[in-house]
């Protein structure tokens, strides 16, 4: 698993509340990319796009050279070539998701489930491991990486905000995916936990593409990102 490079071309995403994200051209990865911008600048939309959760209304996205979304030349001709193309896109999408760990911005940890079970459930959906035991070993390693392994039997609803954030992060880190899309992983973490997060991410940065959205400019420099993307009102302003 090598770190994939993602290309975004002519992207337009229209959301219901009169917000549009446009990305003319953007290349992401390998290594760490930090996405910054004010609330409502489109950070989460960009990350959901990269995590294959939201489809663009126009434009093309490639991951490791394979097209995962292409709305650039969508016409109504439903000929055979078009359908073959769709199958290739489906396969590329599946391949991307197999190597993807995603942390949404909102709290994605169901309160009723126990810590280990939640991470394990996400591991099942991510099709990790060749058998249940090896999958659960991956879950254990991910919980160790975020320092939550001894709370495996606790109900998520009883955890603090910072602990829940780390459980969600473990679900993304499990299995060492080569593409990590993390939307505000630093939210509700204290100083020590932030240091741990920095360590976990820089440890992965060598063989993964990591996209991190954050408000926290000072912290993001400790990640030594390969590039920083500035977003402003749905437009990309790039910085080194």
């Amino acid at each position, binding site marked *: 698993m090598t770190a994939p490079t993602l290309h975004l071309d002519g992207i337009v995403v229209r*959301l*219901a509340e009169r917000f549009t994200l446009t990305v003319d051209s953007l290349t992401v990865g390998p290594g760490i990319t930090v996405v910054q911008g004010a609330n409502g600048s489109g950070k989460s939309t960009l990350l*959901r796009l990269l*995590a*294959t*959760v*939201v*489809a663009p209304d126009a434009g093309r996205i490639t991951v490791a050279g394979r097209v995962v*979304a292409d709305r650039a030349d969508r016409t109504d001709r439903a000929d055979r070539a078009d359908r073959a193309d*769709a199958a290739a896109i*489906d396969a590329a*999408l*599946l391949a991307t*998701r*197999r190597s*993807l760990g*995603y942390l*949404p911005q*909102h*709290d*994605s*940890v*169901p309160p*009723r*489930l*126990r810590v*280990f*079970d*939640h991470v*394990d*459930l*996400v591991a*099942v*959906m*991510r*099709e990790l491991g060749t058998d*249940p*035991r*090896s999958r*659960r*070993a*991956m*879950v*254990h*390693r991910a*919980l160790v990486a975020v320092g939550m*392994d*001894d709370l*495996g*039997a606790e109900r998520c609803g009883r955890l603090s905000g910072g602990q829940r954030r780390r459980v*969600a992060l473990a*679900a993304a880190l499990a299995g060492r995916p080569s593409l990590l*899309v993390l939307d505000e992983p630093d939210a509700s973490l204290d100083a020590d936990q932030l240091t741990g997060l920095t360590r976990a991410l820089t440890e992965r940065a060598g063989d993964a593409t990591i996209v991190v959205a954050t408000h926290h400019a000072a912290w993001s420099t400790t990640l030594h990102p390969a590039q920083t993307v500035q977003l402003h009102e749905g437009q990309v302003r790039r910085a080194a």
Partner: protein
Amino acid sequence: MIPDLDARLAHNLDVVMAGIDAPPRSRFERLLLRARVPEPTARLVAATPTLRIAWFVSVAVVLLFASSAGDTTWDDAGRLAVLLTLAPLVPVVGVALAYGSGADRAHEVSLAAPLSGLRLVLLRTATVLAASAALTLLGVLLAPSAGWLRLAWLLPAAATTATTLAIGTRLGMRTAAGVVGTAWIMLVVAIAQTAGDAAAPFRATGQLVALAVAALATVVLVTGRRHLEHWDGR
């Protein structure tokens, strides 16, 4: 010497520690495993969000029916008709609650995962359907004897559930459930009133129509599966 001994020792320790960290599997999950359900499937099914709500709704329907049994202002046929009308709505409510961002905080995470969206939806639906069917069957045992009519909600339930899923892949499960639920009640009332027989919608013709609708909706669902392979998380 034994190859990879160090790597295997480390891996085995992780497996052991995982066994120690992990909470024991729920009784329901162990039951599924004993029934030879593959382990990943058992995990997914046992963790279906709001499975409990589906159970509660089913219990409520059964209780409602049971309590109406003591109500002398309703005759047996009327009570049976109420049960038959409500039972197909239970899985519809369950599906609406079990799928989508409102019910499942991990919904977006599941969208970004390789596991087929269609498979996930069907698994969760089957779970809710089985749970509600089991309970409704209990309720049926309380029903005044009316022969096969007591089971006459099964095909309509399949039809309403499949239609909800088929519409839901395009409009969202909640909207679909609302549409199907409303349409179902209006249809039943209309047929019953026209025929002057509360059980009229559930007789042979109704069953055949329900079967046809269920089959059609399943075809629509499977051919429209691309809608479930996500990019719909907005």
